[in-house]
């Protein structure tokens, strides 16, 4: 496939403090004890997309990530890691590697995507219509703790989870309207010109832009060069393309014919025909009808381009690790409802306990749990729906529920951890009680202290 993959791995995301640290950039945050980036890379590998550019913000993060990739994917993928300055945004990141893009189409994937949706499907949808951009939309994930009455939680999530407002054509193939970010909270403003051309538009609030896009390379490069202020692919480039689809300013055909070395219209037309045949479309899409102008009247050349969508099946898992809540949710799901993603084999009890892990007597590890390599647990502990990393030392009478414990964590006797995230090298002294907390790497929680809903981290030495 003539697709080049760009994985945007981010850097030290501020929204994920205190989970990220100098040692752990966002892309290396563990999901079921392996870095989140591995999920994307494995997905690419499965889809035979073996050439990828991983773009990382910041040199130090890039070093960390490239060393991890080279150790893990050494023979499997041909990955280049490139560092770009921090805070350039997703569009800025792609702009920075502009010169490295050579293929006809570019697949841009966010490095924090945990999904089983094949990128190949997105690519196929893209090619089918010869689109300039194809975005993958997935259903809004159910977030929030699942234990407190799942139906109640779902209702709540339904109200809160508004990521995008999208407008689709009746065939659900074309993207006609998209509102992202702050616009979601505003009144919906749909362009009449597009609505007129299509006739009917379905507005949906239950879909989320999963940040996996296929772009036509020439178009993407054009836009990035012309619109220097664009920072975000999701919030600026995509909405721009959607907005201008019936009055395209892109030198679409020109650029294409140059590139293919033919400027002949006949070829161009046959290409459109071919794409229609591929789409099984007996009638041309509204773009073509609009471009041709009203039947029989003086033909005025209107430039249009197509923005397509691939809507992931509801049953497929798809989530982005872009908030602390999402980190908990994804960890929960990957060892829980979506455990086929984890790549591990679960035991009969529906959990994974590494053979080298030591579990004391009368300690129970419930279903949907994971206990990493070399970790030790004392007696009379209970673990529910939690992930525990490698080489942790956990005392006796410890209760861990709905939590993520990373590597090399020491937990004293009688601690209770609920709904919390404990980063690497944290020390929890005896009888510490944590509820809904995040504890940054290397932090020491003093004996007997109680915390609820706090974010604990060492003062960063800047």
């Amino acid at each position: 496939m003539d697709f080049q993959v760009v994985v945007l791995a981010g850097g030290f995301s501020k929204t994920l403090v205190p989970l990220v640290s100098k040692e752990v950039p966002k892309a290396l945050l563990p999901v079921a004890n392996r870095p989140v980036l591995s999920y994307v890379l494995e997905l690419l590998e499965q889809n035979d997309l073996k050439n990828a550019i991983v773009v990382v913000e910041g040199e130090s993060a890039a070093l960390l990530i490239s060393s991890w990739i080279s150790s893990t994917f050494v023979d499997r993928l041909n990955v280049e890691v490139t560092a770009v300055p921090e805070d350039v945004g997703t569009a800025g990141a792609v702009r920075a590697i502009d010169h490295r893009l050579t293929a006809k189409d570019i697949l841009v994937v966010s490095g924090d995507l945990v999904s089983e949706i094949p990128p190949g499907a997105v690519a196929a949808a893209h090619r089918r219509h010869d689109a300039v951009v194809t975005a993958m939309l997935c259903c809004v994930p159910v977030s929030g703790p699942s234990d407190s009455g799942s139906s109640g939680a779902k209702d709540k999530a339904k109200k809160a989870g508004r990521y995008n407002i999208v407008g689709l054509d009746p065939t659900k193939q074309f993207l006609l309207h998209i509102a992202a970010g702050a616009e979601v909270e505003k009144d919906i403003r749909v362009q009449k010109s597009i609505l007129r051309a299509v006739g009917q538009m379905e507005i949906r609030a239950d879909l989320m832009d999963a940040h996996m896009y296929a772009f036509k390379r020439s178009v993407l490069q054009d836009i990035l060069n012309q619109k220097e202020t664009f920072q975000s692919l999701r919030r600026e480039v995509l909405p721009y393309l959607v907005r201008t689809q019936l009055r395209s300013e892109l030198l679409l055909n020109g650029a294409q014919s140059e590139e293919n070395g033919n400027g002949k219209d006949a070829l161009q037309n046959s290409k459109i025909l071919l794409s229609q045949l591929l789409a099984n479309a007996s009638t041309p899409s509204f773009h073509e009808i609009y471009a041709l102008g009203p039947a029989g009247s003086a033909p005025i050349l209107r430039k249009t381009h197509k923005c397509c969508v691939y809507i992931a099946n509801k049953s497929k898992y798809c989530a982005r690790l872009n908030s602390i809540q999402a980190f908990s949710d994804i960890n929960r799901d990957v060892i829980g409802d979506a455990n086929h993603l984890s790549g591990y084999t679960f035991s009969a009890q529906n959990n994974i306990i590494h053979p080298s892990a030591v579990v004391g007597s009368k300690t129970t590890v419930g279903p949907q749990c994971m206990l990493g390599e070399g970790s030790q647990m004392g007696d009379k502990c209970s673990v529910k729906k939690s992930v525990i990393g490698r080489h942790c030392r956990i005392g006796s009478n410890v209760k861990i529920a709905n939590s993520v414990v990373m590597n090399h964590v020491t937990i004293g006797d009688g601690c209770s951890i609920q709904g919390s995230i404990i980063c690497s090298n944290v020390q929890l002294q005896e009888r510490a009680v944590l509820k809904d907390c995040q504890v940054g790497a290397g932090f020491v929680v003093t004996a007997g202290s109680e915390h609820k809903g706090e974010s604990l981290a060492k003062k960063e030495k800047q």
Partner: protein
Amino acid sequence: MVAKKGNRGGVGGEDAEEELTRVPLQAILLADSFATLFRPITLERPKVLLPLVNAPMIDYTLAWLESAGVEEVFVFCCAHSKQVIDYLENSKWFGQPSFSVTTIESYNATSAGDALRLIYERHVIRGDFILVTGDTVSNMSLTQALKEHKERRRKDSNAVMTMVIKQSKPSPITHQSRLGTEELFMAIDPNTKQLLYYEDKADTLKGTVSLDKALLIDNSSISLHNDKQDCYIDICCPEVLSLFTDNFDYQHLRRHFVKGLLVDDIMGYKIFTHEIHSSYAARIDNYRSYDAVSKDIIQRWTYPLVPDVQFFGNCVTKLERQGTYRASDIGLSRSAKIGPFTVIGSGTTIGNYTEVANSVIGEGCIIGSNVSIDGCYIWDKVTIEDGCKLKHAIVCDGVVMKSGAILEAGVVLSFKVIIGQQFAVPAYSKVSLFQQPVTQDSDEELEYADNSSGNIEIASIPNTPEKLEEDLTTELSDSQIQAASEVGNGGAGFIWSVSEGGHEEGWRHSVAPIPADRLVEIIKNATDELEISNEDGNILPPSGELEPGSVNDSDEDVRDDFAHFEKEVEATFLRAVHENIKEDHVVLEVNSLRLSYNLTSSDCAGALFYAMMKLALDTPHGSPGELVKTVASVIAKWKKLLKYYLPSLDEEIEVILKFEEMCLESTKEYSSLFVQVLHLLYDKDILQEDAILNWAAEKEEADESDKLFLKQAEKFIQWLNEASEEE
């Protein structure tokens, strides 16, 4: 009736109780469209009695209602109510066994709202009813829609209305439907079919449809439609009538009632839609729909409402090849050519070598030789002499066209007009024996007319056709003489001038197809517009995170609003100046403007000040010095008014800022006089010194470019400063 029973059976026996209190299915038929698109014809005959393929429109509506199982119809008549009642009384509709027709007469109703309020007072509606106008042609079955309506109603008593819609994509060029109605934007909940948004008089300048964000809170998905047509067939609950009574300002069914329910969210009442797919439903509300529906009838889309199936079985018209219908007793010359899709009524004679195509010719017409008729609607007892040419015209009863007369596309000849020999009636003109009424309407009517159809031409027509009719006999003799010259030698009739903007509407709503060159013109304009909106698109925020972008967006709206407000204030002020209106009254008017635009009093001050300065500038003046004097006199005269809006320093600063802006943008003449005017304002006690000093302090931090006027005023400010220190 049969359909009705089937429906009952389907619902099941559970509602035996309801069965006891069962009311017959009722319908309200509004035999007045409360619009004036069919002028001048409707000055003489009510619209519902106009022949549509040789049968009055109201017959189509009544026949459909009867076949759809309606048992009681209340016909509301207002304009020409006598004619309607007379017609119905002599028709076979009265005295049908299971179909009762009752007329309700009113002399002063000016809108559908008035009509419904009157009907409410009569207490004749006892249950769900069908609300239609007398110009509806349909063959849809109401069974399914009624069932849905009743079921919804059982679950949710707020579901007060079901609106029938139909697929119909408006033309991409003219943005009007095949029926000549404006494009319609609707938002519908795809699951419940609830209507969420309705915009039928789209502001073409606004490039977006704006949906309230609250809509998406309850529905995760909404369908936006531009491809549906409103059939103006509504199934209503009795509450609808009381809603009209409660909200006495509701006039128009769609523009007030539907909008009111959707936007104001009164008591949570809901409107639902029912889409019909295979059956026919259309309303005739302009000449274009008259043409379109006539063609549909001839082409049998409306079966069984077609010319050869008469409503009471008196089948005199026979269908022949190529969709041609002929009455049995016509006198047709052998050499005449009758083209496809033509209807010829009984008793009509057609001369040698005459060609007729795509036309309807009524009863008792006499058509000479060598006449060419294409796409015309010729009503009864029309005489067309030899050699006339008619194309896409409507010719009413009793018209005489002298030999060689020509009707160009889109012409309407009202009753008994006589067109002189060889006279060519220009395209889209309307000819009537009545003189075009002059503009002198009461405010009220104007306002309503404006709301009711958006057709500019109606503003110039008073709403009292009956009166005119009375005058006719006396007037006619004079007018005939006067009018003679207007429509050729020996003719009678006035050509109605199309008022401003009316010509634009002329082709839009005429019977003639839209000429190709017009289409090209529109396309060209559209592309120009597109380019403009293109630029807009670039100004439009890149959306999303870049907050300033989206803020800017709404800002634009605000600015737009503000500009309107400013203009209105200016107009108000100028009127006050010219008509010597008292300050108090001006204050009242400006206040009401302020409230309607939701602005603050500092905005009023700014706008008023702007208006005054503009006035001074527009007064002829020679030198800048003179200008300052004019300013002084204007300010002196209206000081009290301005002062009213300057209760505190903030407003005064606003005035200075406004003045600065004016100097930079709209009225550059003042830029050299900035200090002088500022001083003047100070002297006249319009501005306090604190205001000026505060302004200066505020400006101190501004960009260099912004300080232009501050520098000019430097000395003055210094002087002020010193003065205050001295104190």
